[in-house]
């Protein structure tokens, strides 16, 4: 608000206190105030002195007055009694019942549902929270108990009504927003019901936590929270934030360095709050929530910087833990505990949590699988503790160690979940991929290849080998991320191909070389012209993950030489197929997410030929492929050289044209027919 000029100002006498917010009766354009809990004042715009206006003294203390657009004001008393203003003014001294005994009203809100006003209020008593819903016209009152949450209690409420259901949102002290649904159509069971809460949103983003003080609902997917944002190691800043509850993202935030009163109002797509000494009004607009908007608006927080989380001290702890687990002697253990404690003296003040992680992992070593996993899950879901990254490393290491000791144990989904949701690296959990290779968990390997920035070439090669050797029929049953191939591969065809093969074989083949051989020879007929994909979509997706990973030629080449010739041919065939596919497009890029680029394809092709050239030349089935490849590349080279020539000619023409234009005088010949 630029020009803050009061349009009207009224004050009560010295010694009197206005005890609840003043409201305006929209129907009569009167203002209603309560002072000293019991005294009601009603006046109009033109009245100047508040002392001389209408006054009514009530028999009970007023908690709040709610003004409804079409229903007239509703008065809520501290005892839980509710009256409309009209009823109250008829007999101001009427008896007001006390419903809630010694509970204290924390918050209240009124709505119009159809033609009747509905009042909802929340009370507290000894840490228990209750919600009352009162329908005025029907004179019905429902009491609910709010589900208790350990270690957190509701700080602030807001509610809206839609389709006969009240949605109550509460902001809790654990920096989360919970959603409670209260049906308005209630069978008149008088017993107290417990309302269960569901987590709507955690107010944390890339390590910083928002301590909300008040919040409002903007639309179906957006809420605005006013509070202080506290990042670890930084001073907290007050800010206004808008969150997308659908995608759990912070949509936007505005810092308010001058501080606020902690209150936020919202009216007609505008926020009102105090900022420093001024009332600030901010207009907002909620666009329809879409993933693109959610992602596009918050790129930085979506890709948190990995390195900033790593704390070498805690990594040290992790190693310690690992070393403990290999130890069996109790005596040694206690001794190490002592070293641990000594360490704590130096680091403890900064990271008390991580040490307890070490401790916890140590304790869990012998726990049962389910308990173990549950505990770890809890540890991870604790989120955003300092050095969380290191903790994850510890957790994975613990899991992997358990896998190693217990060959039957392999928490596939749990590992997948961790890798997919957290930013890990190979060096943080070096054994993970080794175990996955051992277990042939190709999906996990694929995700690792996609997400880890630092996989050694040896492991990359191992992955490639496993991917190439696994049978298509086995892959059929496995969930692999196909997003990199879905856009260019002809899945229909491949499915058919694989299916007929299964029928032909009559059994489930798994890692059997002879089947491989028959398959390859079978497929050569089809793929001779490079038109069809020589591998199924699952395998293609896995190979794409390999193509995408970082490597250094010198380190990869020696390993690549060990690739069996048949697999090398298959891989080359696939690369050739990709190359042809790429060249089809004018921009020589494959569609889709994480699809390999032309340079990746070329590099791998060269590398593979370098590694296996002599073998390839000797191999009869590779002969046709090589000659096709040669022909295709030669055609491409010719095509590009022609393009170069055209480009040169065009440039020359342009130059000539330009030269002609810059002259200020010329005599030209013009023929008109």
């Amino acid at each position, binding site marked *: 608000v630029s020009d803050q000029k009061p349009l009207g100002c009224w004050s009560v006498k010295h010694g009197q206190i206005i005890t609840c917010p003043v409201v305006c009766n929209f129907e009569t354009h009167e203002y209603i105030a309560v002072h000293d809990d019991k005294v009601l004042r009603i006046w109009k715009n033109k009245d100047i002195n508040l002392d001389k206006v209408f006054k009514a003294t009530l028999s009970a203390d007023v908690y709040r007055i709610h003004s409804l657009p079409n229903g007239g004001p509703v008065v809520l008393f501290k005892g839980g009694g509710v009256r409309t203003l009209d009823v109250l003014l008829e007999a101001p001294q009427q008896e007001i019942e006390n419903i809630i005994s010694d509970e204290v009203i924390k918050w209240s809100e009124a709505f119009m549902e159809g033609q009747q006003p509905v009042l909802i209020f929340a009370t507290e008593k000894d840490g228990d929270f209750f919600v009352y819903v009162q329908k005025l016209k029907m004179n019905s009152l429902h009491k609910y108990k709010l589900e208790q949450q350990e270690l957190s209690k509701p700080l602030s409420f807001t509610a809206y009504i839609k389709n006969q259901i009240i949605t109550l949102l509460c902001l809790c002290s654990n920096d989360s927003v919970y959603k409670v649904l209260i049906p308005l159509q209630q069978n008149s069971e008088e017993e107290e019901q417990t309302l269960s809460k569901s987590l709507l949103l955690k107010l944390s983003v890339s390590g910083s936590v928002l301590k909300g003080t008040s919040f409002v609902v903007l639309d179906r997917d957006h809420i605005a929270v006013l509070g202080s944002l506290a990042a670890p190691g930084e001073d907290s800043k007050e800010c206004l934030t808008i969150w997308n509850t659908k995608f759990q993202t912070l949509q936007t935030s505005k810092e308010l360095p001058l501080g606020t009163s902690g209150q936020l109002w919202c009216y007609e797509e505008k926020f009102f709050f105090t900022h420093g000494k001024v009332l600030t009004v901010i207009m907002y607009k909620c666009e329809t929530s879409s993933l693109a908007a959610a992602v596009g608006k918050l790129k930085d927080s979506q890709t948190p910087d990995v390195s900033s989380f790593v704390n070498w001290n805690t990594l040290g702890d992790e190693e310690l833990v690992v070393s403990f687990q290999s130890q069996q002697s109790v005596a040694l253990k206690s001794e190490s505990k002592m070293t641990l404690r000594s360490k704590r003296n130096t680091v403890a003040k900064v990271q008390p949590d991580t040490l307890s992680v070490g401790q916890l992992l140590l304790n869990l070593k012998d726990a049962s699988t389910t308990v173990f996993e549950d505990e770890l899950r809890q540890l991870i879901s604790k989120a955003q503790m300092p050095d969380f990254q290191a903790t994850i490393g510890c957790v994975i290491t613990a899991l992997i160690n358990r896998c190693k000791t217990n060959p039957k144990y392999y928490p596939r989904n749990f590992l997948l979940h961790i890798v997919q949701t957290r930013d890990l690296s190979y060096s943080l959990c070096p054994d993970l991929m080794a175990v996955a290779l051992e277990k042939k968990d190709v999906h996990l390997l694929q995700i690792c290849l996609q997400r880890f920035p630092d996989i050694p070439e040896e492991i990359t090669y191992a992955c490639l080998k496993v991917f190439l050797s696994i049978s298509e029929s086995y892959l059929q049953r496995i969930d692999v991320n196909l997003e990199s191939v879905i856009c260019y591969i002809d899945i229909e065809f491949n499915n058919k191909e694989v299916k007929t093969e299964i029928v032909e074989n009559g059994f489930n083949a798994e890692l059997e070389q002879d089947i491989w051989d028959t398959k390859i020879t079978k497929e050569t007929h089809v793929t001779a012209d490079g038109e069809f994909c020589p591998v199924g979509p699952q395998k293609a997706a896995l190979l794409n993950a390999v193509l995408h990973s970082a490597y250094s030629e010198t380190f990869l080449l020696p390993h690549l030489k060990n690739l069996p010739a048949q697999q090398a041919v298959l891989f080359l065939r696939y690369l050739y197929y990709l190359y042809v596919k790429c060249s089809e497009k004018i921009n020589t890029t494959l569609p889709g997410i994480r699809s390999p680029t032309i340079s990746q394809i070329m590099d791998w092709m060269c590398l593979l030929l370098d590694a296996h050239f002599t073998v390839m030349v000797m191999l009869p089935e590779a002969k046709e492929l090589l000659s096709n490849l040669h022909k295709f590349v030669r055609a491409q080279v010719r095509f590009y050289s022609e393009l170069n020539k055209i480009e040169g000619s065009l440039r020359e023409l342009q130059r000539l044209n330009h030269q002609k234009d810059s002259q200020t*005088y010329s005599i030209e010949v013009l023929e008109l027919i």
Partner: protein
Amino acid sequence: MGEFEVHRVRFFGLVPAGVRCLACQPRGGRLALARTDGAVEVYNFAANYFQEKVIPGHEARSVEALCWTVGDRLFGAGLGGEIMEYDLARLCVARTVDGCGGPIWSMAANSSGTQLAIGCEDGSVKLFQVVPGGIQFERNLDRRKGRILCLSWHPSDTHIAAGSIDILRVFDVCSGQTVQRIMVNYHVHKVKRECIVWSIAFLSSGTVVTSDSFGRVQFWDWERGTLLESHTVSTSAVLSLSVSEKEDSIVVGTSTGATYQFQLLPVKMGSLEKRWVRTKPFQHHTHDVRAVAHSSTALISGGLDAQLVIRPLMEKMQKKGYDAVLRKFTFPHRRLVSCARKARLLLFQFSQHLELWRLGSTDETGKDGEVLPLRRMPEHLVQLKSKGPEHIYCSCVSPCGSWVAYSTASRFHLYRVQYEGDGVSVKKVPRVPKLLLPAYQLQFSADSGSLFVASARGSVHVLQLLEPGGCKHLHTLRPPSGCPEAVYLLAVSTDGHWLAAVGGDWAIHIYNLKCFKHHCAVPTYSCAVTALAIHPVTNNLVIAYSDQQLFEFSIPEKQYTTWSRMVQNCGLHKVWLERDSPITHITFNPKNPSHILLHDIYMFCVLDKSLPLPDNSALLMNQSTLKQLPETARQRQLHAFKICKKFQPLLFADLLDENCLVMVERPIMDFKTQLPLPVQQKKFGT
């Protein structure tokens, strides 16, 4: 048909002046435009936006604001501190009144057009009453420090909003008191820059709209003095603002060359609550958009890049037509070049000087599209500077090249040019006859023996030129019924027998020069004449109108020719009629009597009357198609219009001899580079 040797001339260094302000005639079909050099132009919407009237500029007479008042009178005010009334019949300043408040930055007329308010350098707002024969000072409003940069009347005429630096004020017209003052940079604490309110508009709802140097368009509640809405449209200044008559749309122009439309739209479908929403951005200009206007069907903007852009609002268009297309005007709709055919000279008219050039020559011939080697380069012979602050109205060089004449608002000059070998001597002809000035058009006879001077009230003076350097007033031709408007186009027949003259009322009168008598008038046609010429052999008068119609009128027979009737019966090609710039010059080829040569800014056309007219299904611009066809197949495809679009923008084209043409082009980029860089300019205390 034939090959031409084309002298392609690009050395006419014309730099059109930027557009300073615009004013739409209320409920009328005209747009007044003032340029930074003080020139004022009037465009006629009904005549396809033809630039109907031009009042050339004046060095000391800047125009900061234009207003139409009651009786379609046009007033201008500028930094000279004077309010000028323009005489639109005689195309000059009719009278001036001193504003007595220093430079005038702004002027606004009330809704009925009976009062003018001016905003002055000294911070005063003065009211003038528009009375017959002038304006009368009425009163001063409450004066405060700070120049008044913009003014706007409330539609009820009770209040005036005035924009200044950092502040806007609202005056009560009755009491003259300031009833509200609003600081516009109130909540920009950090910035110590001044905020200049460049433009203001007072809506009937009581909302005041301002545009300012911070790039904001703001809406204020004047009674409460509160900000209703603020839209930041640009990082640099928003210089101009205009509201539609219905007050549901606003156009603003910024110093980055972009214009934006705001529309008052319901918040939701069917909702009563309406809000201003920025709807359409346009980037038609490369430089500051100093002026915008909002007609009922179009957004009009004028920039320092000299462009006038008329952007039709498609939602207001009922049918596809001339009005429904974007129009851009950069060059004047009349010619500034004259050609001495025999001497192969070109005379270029600038605002305050003339340049005489001799064309080069070549010995070679070649095929279509070839550039021939030059034997002689073109030569800049003479530069004639006009003395005094007045700008040149018109100029002409005689066909033999030995006479040059020009006129300003108050003076007429005639020069005798003699060529001795490589040298050129210019001698001013003394004691030219006293004529009613200014002259609006000058035309020498084909034998260079006489000069025709187009003058006010429909009159044409005939001067006889005498060797070795003198002249004598022979006669003044006047239309028999009289005419209040000035003559703006002349055409003389080669045999010296006939003269055709067009006045501001668009009536064409033909005079017999042998007996100095009015011969006849061409039947009136309700559109502006943009060019006319008399055929050297047949003495047929060819007329081009601004609605792109062509007529041929036989002077001896006093009636339209059969060809002309045939053209009217068949109708011209659709594409021809949809062209957006008027024909500015018509000439003939004496060796090919059936040919008419005409051109506009974007094309040169040889109209061969002996060939059939194209119907709408035929391709009008078919030259490139024809060139690809074999000789035999061409015959069936030929039609009367042979159009060449190679030379653009074409300011002038003429036939030097049988197969030699001269084309004067002015590439847009050539003059754009001479404009100042398109950044927000510091004009004063910013």
